[in-house]
């Protein structure tokens, strides 16, 4: 026996000493929720196009998406007499909409008027009333997970490198980006020593959770890794990430979070083609893959896509758009009552712009999300108030 074989034998013996505790495995039925945060303030006006508004075409001489044409199968997709969907997501999100598995909520957002990315992202993720001081250790997904833990356990995960503020306040939620997955670096003995070293430390939970999750994910994706070794993986980028998210949410988790960047289009965002449509197309393909990979679990899954704010209704001097206010949220799910444009709405014209600049907010995001959560989990009013204090849920009748 040479040295290498000896050490391998020693390693195998160490592994035989019992498994690291599994993370909680979710029951096979019950609702799932994924929040997709588009960081940077995506230009919702070129996603859900107000094509009945002549002012849209006046305000965006270079970057307006052309009106839908029933003869075209590649242009904007008319959703009703006023709204059309961007060509970039026509075959993905548009297809879901036609199957009533997608809906859009325009004129939605927060009362935060700083028009700062960071300030507004923070205030949305915290989900607290704007009056009063902020508690940076309490995000709304964290409160949701805690609230549900009392009755039906809701295992949660952030598919991100860093823990998002939305989950602040819960020490038990793990995070792991699924852009790359690999074998865990530590065997069970080493993992136990590392956990013990943090025994009693305030990071103990995070240390232990993190080491366990690495181990779990390696098992979950063992097949995929084998396939990768044979070059059999044909998806990549956000699509691959979305596929992996779906596998983990199908088997283990009920509440998930992911963020996607690259939406701050001050310059040259493009109309039917260009940088924004490219990003939208990738997002659309990823979410379609997510829905397909979930299989039957898609029936009890709801996805909300949101962003900190919309952008200026008019294009700026550089064929882009600047920071705005009201935006458009997407709601997707296998069993939602989709195929609608939901929530309070108004005619899109220059006169109805907020501060002669951007979309107004007619639907408060806390009310909208609170309404979805209440319907999904059958929450009591006390539970709803714990998630979004001082904001009554609004039922958009999508779930």
């Amino acid at each position, binding site marked *: 026996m040479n040295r290498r074989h000896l050490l391998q034998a020693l390693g195998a013996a160490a592994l035989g000493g019992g498994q690291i505790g599994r993370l909680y495995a979710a029951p096979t039925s019950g609702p799932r929720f994924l929040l997709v945060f588009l960081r940077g303030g995506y230009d919702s006006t070129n996603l859900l196009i107000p094509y009945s508004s002549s002012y849209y075409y006046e305000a965006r001489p270079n970057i307006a998406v052309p009106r839908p044409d029933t003869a075209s199968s590649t242009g904007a997709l008319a959703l009703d007499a006023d709204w059309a969907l961007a060509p970039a997501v026509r075959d993905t999100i548009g297809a879901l909409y036609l199957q009533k598995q997608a809906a859009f909520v325009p004129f939605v957002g927060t009362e935060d008027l700083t028009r700062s990315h*960071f300030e507004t992202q923070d205030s949305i993720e915290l989900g607290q009333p704007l009056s009063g001081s902020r508690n940076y250790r309490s995000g709304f997904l964290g409160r949701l997970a805690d609230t549900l833990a009392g009755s039906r356990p809701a295992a949660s995960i952030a598919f991100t490198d860093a823990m998002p503020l939305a989950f602040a306040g819960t020490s038990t939620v793990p995070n792991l980006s699924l852009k790359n997955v690999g074998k865990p670096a530590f065997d069970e003995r080493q993992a136990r020593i590392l956990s013990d070293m943090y025994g009693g430390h305030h990071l103990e*939970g*995070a240390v232990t959770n*993190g080491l366990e999750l690495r181990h779990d994910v390696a098992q979950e994706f063992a097949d995929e890794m084998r396939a990768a070794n044979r070059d059999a993986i044909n998806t990549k980028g956000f699509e691959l990430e979305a596929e992996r998210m779906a596998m983990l949410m199908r088997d283990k988790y009920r509440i998930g979070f992911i963020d996607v960047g690259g939406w701050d289009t001050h310059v040259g965002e493009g109309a039917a083609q260009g940088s924004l449509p490219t990003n939208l197309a990738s997002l659309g393909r990823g979410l379609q893959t997510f829905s397909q990979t979930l299989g039957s679990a898609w029936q009890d899954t709801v996805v909300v896509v949101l962003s900190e704010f919309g952008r200026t209704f008019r294009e700026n001097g550089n064929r882009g758009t*600047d920071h705005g206010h009201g935006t458009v949220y997407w709601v997707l799910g296998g069993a939602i009552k989709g195929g609608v444009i939901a929530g309070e709405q108004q005619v899109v014209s220059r006169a109805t712009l907020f501060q002669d600049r951007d979309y107004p907010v007619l639907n408060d995001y806390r009310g909208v999300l609170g309404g979805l959560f209440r319907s999904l989990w059958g929450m009591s009013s006390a539970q709803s108030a714990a998630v979004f204090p001082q904001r009554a849920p609004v039922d958009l009748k999508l779930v």
Partner: protein
Amino acid sequence: MSISAYARGSLTGLSACLLLVCSACATRTPTAAATGAPQVGGAPLPVLRREDVLWLERVTFGLDSTTVADYQRLGRERFLAAQLHAVDRPLPAPIAATIAAMEVTHIDSQATLADVAARNKALGALPEGADRELARKTLGDHGNELAYEAIRRDLLRAVYSESQLQEQMIWFWLNHFSVYQHKANVRWVIGDYEERAIRPHALGSFKDLVLATLEHPAMLQYLDNQQNAAGHVNENYARELMELHTLGVGGGYSQGDVQQLALVLTGVGINTGEPPRLKPELRPLYRRHGAFEFNPARHDFSAKILFGVPVRGQGFAEVENAVALIVAQPACARFIARELATYFVSDNPPPALVARMARTFQQSNGDIAAVLHTLFTAREFDASLGGKFKDPMRFVVSSVRFAYDGRAISNVKPMLNWLNSLGEAPYGRQTPDGYPMTELNWASSGQLSRRFEIARAIGSGNAGLFDAEQGTTAGAAGFPQLSNRLYFEAVEPFLLAKTRDALGRANSQQEWNTFLLSSPEFSYE
């Protein structure tokens, strides 16, 4: 990993292997030779106390023998004075030679961007096809190489410079005035941005620092002000200049102020070619140095009002006046004081300390060294020692400083890979807010696991740090011996019981190294 590290070692045969495993499996007790006080000029130096070690870890990028000896020789007060004022001290010869050989050391933005423009033009003239693609790729590769050189230089200085506080401040300001290398042609000029806009002012005047970043092509491209012109207003930079660089989001400016400042900034841009043809009355207002240009023909000369103060339309003087007005706001002093205290003191810095620092800022006209002196000599600073979680840059740099203790590495790519994988890629923050500086953002479960993996990579072998790269030759190195003199002098006496226990359970020196670098004592300073 540990298996391959063993395989590379000099030991052969089963007995030697087992001997190594056993000899390293217990925490070593300090010996007289290891703990004997170091001597300079015959006089014994004072023994380090825990508060000395923690103080030093915070003021520098981490311990190494040179820094510790300097501190022991000078005492805290003189050490601090030297760090605050005597800057750009010479680097160790091999590091200085590596930096001197870099292309990025010998170019400036003007020449670089002019070259890029010329090569792009030549490219455009080629017919579509393989030649054009090759030329495009060659050009892009060159930009990537320059960006890598800039990062390599930054990391080498962070590890080896004796001006440790200056290097930390350069990191701090690069992060405060963050630019993203993958936008436009930013990657070509980040080396120049660090060297000519940030470095000269890192411990100097805050107003000069703001103006230097404002005029630099890296910032002008990144936040789009090069496109901001009368009739084509782009307010991106104007907003971030107040929100992120000077006043903070609650700093008392309005959306109206953002729009007015955007008008003030019209015409501030980049030119690497011929000067524009200007009407005679505009010519005296034209400004240019390096790649920076103020073109009065692109400026909006209307009268503006900023914070209620009228700004007369008069060209670039408006910009200088506006920056002076902004940095003189009490909100700016408070914001910068709080940012500095968040990085150096605590995730929630004591308000009284921030207020004293803000007062120093105002009384000294924004003298950064003076504000830092207030910070480092405050009792709140002493009280905070040991409680600050290292961000990835501090973790990676302090690990390499500790593991190789002044010995010149040949290759910084592993360090860059670790920073990338920990989520703090240099010049890699897409959004202009810079990386966060608080534990909440770096100590999630996923990030801690990743940190332990990197601790293992550093502790288990040379991790590629001694491979040759451009301008260096390969060095021979096995895994580092972390149980060295520095360890027994500055680390071992202060270890917690749980850490001692973990080290005692290590099966090899590599594992021992891994646990030490993964310990809470190593991640908190």
